């Protein structure tokens, strides 16, 4: 009886703690959404109101009408599509021999791939900038999309992790039937690997929806900025900071990652978990 009560007490305790942590983690997101429905005047009242006095949809109408939101959105979508196609094609291919073939230099290449994951992006950005300047690619989408076609190490790693779980008998059988390596890759490994394609496709979309630094460096024109940089530059163009409009824009920025996470939660979490294991 005593023990039973103690258990109930600790689990109450635990629930409370879990709720507190959930509030801490979710509050900023909630605050963005709630604020997006407040008229500008309600950002300067004290004490701050938790709920907007009424749902002020005009913020959304105004942000669509008076900012480059649609242009930013189009640019972000271009970056997402380009990068995701690029990395899926190249990374799935590069990972194949690392997981399924034996060849000289495999270990060297694989450890180089892992090592490049440890290089901070700021270390390579200046020469990349110079290179793209020489090519005349500055202030276009090319510096942001083209590198994706040359396989990102993190994605190569995720593909390799997945390929290694596929039974070898499948390739062996196909090879006995006269399938080439490319045949095995395209007809057997790639179709089986659909889940990891979905995982990386989703992660890549979320990443490029959120990415701030790279477009900040390569894009200058207002008409080419993606959402992440666009919302930042919008916040700095108005004389008074228009919190109402910024929050409406920020709410729109929450939509895609949250939707993708809800739709593909299993794929995302399973994919990330494999990075922690051999």
């Amino acid at each position, binding site marked *: 009886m005593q023990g039973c009560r103690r*258990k109930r007490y600790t689990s109450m305790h635990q629930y409370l703690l*879990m709720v507190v*942590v959930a509030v801490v*983690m*979710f*509050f*900023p997101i909630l*605050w*963005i959404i709630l604020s997006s429905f407040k008229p500008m005047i309600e950002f300067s009242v*004290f004490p*701050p109101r938790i709920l907007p006095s009424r749902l002020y949809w005009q913020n959304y109408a105004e942000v669509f009408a008076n900012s480059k939101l649609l242009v930013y959105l189009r640019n972000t979508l271009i970056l997402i599509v380009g990068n995701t196609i690029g*990395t899926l094609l*190249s990374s799935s*291919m590069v990972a194949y*021999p690392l997981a399924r*073939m*034996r*060849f*000289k*230099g*495999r*270990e060297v290449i694989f*450890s180089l*791939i*892992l090592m490049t*994951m*440890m*290089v*901070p992006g*700021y*270390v*390579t*950005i*200046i*020469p990349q900038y*110079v290179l793209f300047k020489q090519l005349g690619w500055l202030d276009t989408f090319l510096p942001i999309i083209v590198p994706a*076609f*040359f*396989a*990102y190490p*993190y994605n*190569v790693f995720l593909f390799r992790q997945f390929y290694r779980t596929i039974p070898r008998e499948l390739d062996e059988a196909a090879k006995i039937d006269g399938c080439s*390596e490319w045949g095995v890759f395209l007809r057997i490994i790639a179709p089986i690997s659909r889940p990891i394609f979905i995982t*990386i496709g989703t992660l890549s979309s979320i*990443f490029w929806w*959120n990415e*701030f*630094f790279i477009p*900040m460096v390569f894009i200058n024109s207002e008409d080419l900025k993606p*959402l*992440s940089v666009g919302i930042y530059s919008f*916040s700095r163009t108005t004389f008074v900071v228009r*919190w109402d409009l*910024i*929050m409406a824009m*920020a709410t729109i*920025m*929450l939509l895609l990652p949250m939707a*993708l996470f809800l739709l593909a939660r299993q794929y995302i979490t399973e994919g*990330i978990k494999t990075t922690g294991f051999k």
Partner: protein
Amino acid sequence: MSVRGASAPLFFFLLQVGSPVTRSGESRKAYLFVLPWILGFVLFTGGPILATIVLSFTKWDLIGFPNWIGLGNYARLFRQGSEFWIVLKFTAFYTVFSVAISVGWALFEAALLNARNIRGTSLFGFFYFIPAVVPMVALTFAFQLILHKELGILNYVLSLLGLRETPNWLVDPKLVVWVVVALNIYTFYAGQMMLIFDSALKEVPRELYEAAEIDGAGRFTQFLKITLPAISPILLFNLVTATISSLNTSFTLLYPLTAGGPGKVTQAISLDIYHNAFKTFRVGYACAESIILFGIAALASLLMFVLSKRWVYYEV
């Protein structure tokens, strides 16, 4: 994902380096598959690192021709009273404490999600992970509102709790450095670590806890004696991941939130590189800073490997 959203599985790889057995004829085919990465490595990673090293010995404004000045940039970086000392000091502070806080927090969240006799963990897991996938730049605007001295909800709540002098979170130089460190719990890598800890905790055999419970060990002792040793390889992996990622995400968190201010108190090296390279066009100087950053990242990962030999328990 790019090179930057990365983690450090190199560590596990080094533990299990196998012997490469070559079957003749396969090599050339294999290299055809790997070719895109090799080209990418030369063009976008390896080549640029070498170029950064070379440029760090020059004075260059991106327009004319780089002037060789030897170690001049490094001498300027490390001369007495140089601003770079402030940048370096903050970067070290930021990295060490973001790692400590984000790793600790991720482990804490994962431990909560793995509590026995608790239902609904999947729902909680959703709330714990969701900030990781939304854009940091959007969150920084929320932080500015929430943390505002006069109008922010946090200070309002604190004043309700009886606090008279409410803090100026983002302006007080002593406070802001802690605020930006703490906000790392909302980053992608913090969420990533939470998921990895979560699955590591699920692997710890239940019987160990049951045995400890019979022996009368409390929750905390169980955590120290059973959980920590069991997940120590994962803990180390996450420490490496967090070190690299906190350096890597510093720009996205700091630039929209504080832009390095007030003054230069939150000017991390990433912001300084960006500023010097692309705003004031002191490219050689920025490259020298990049090389220092490269060294820090390499040293940090190396240090973790060395320490791992002592700390980490492996099942053989």
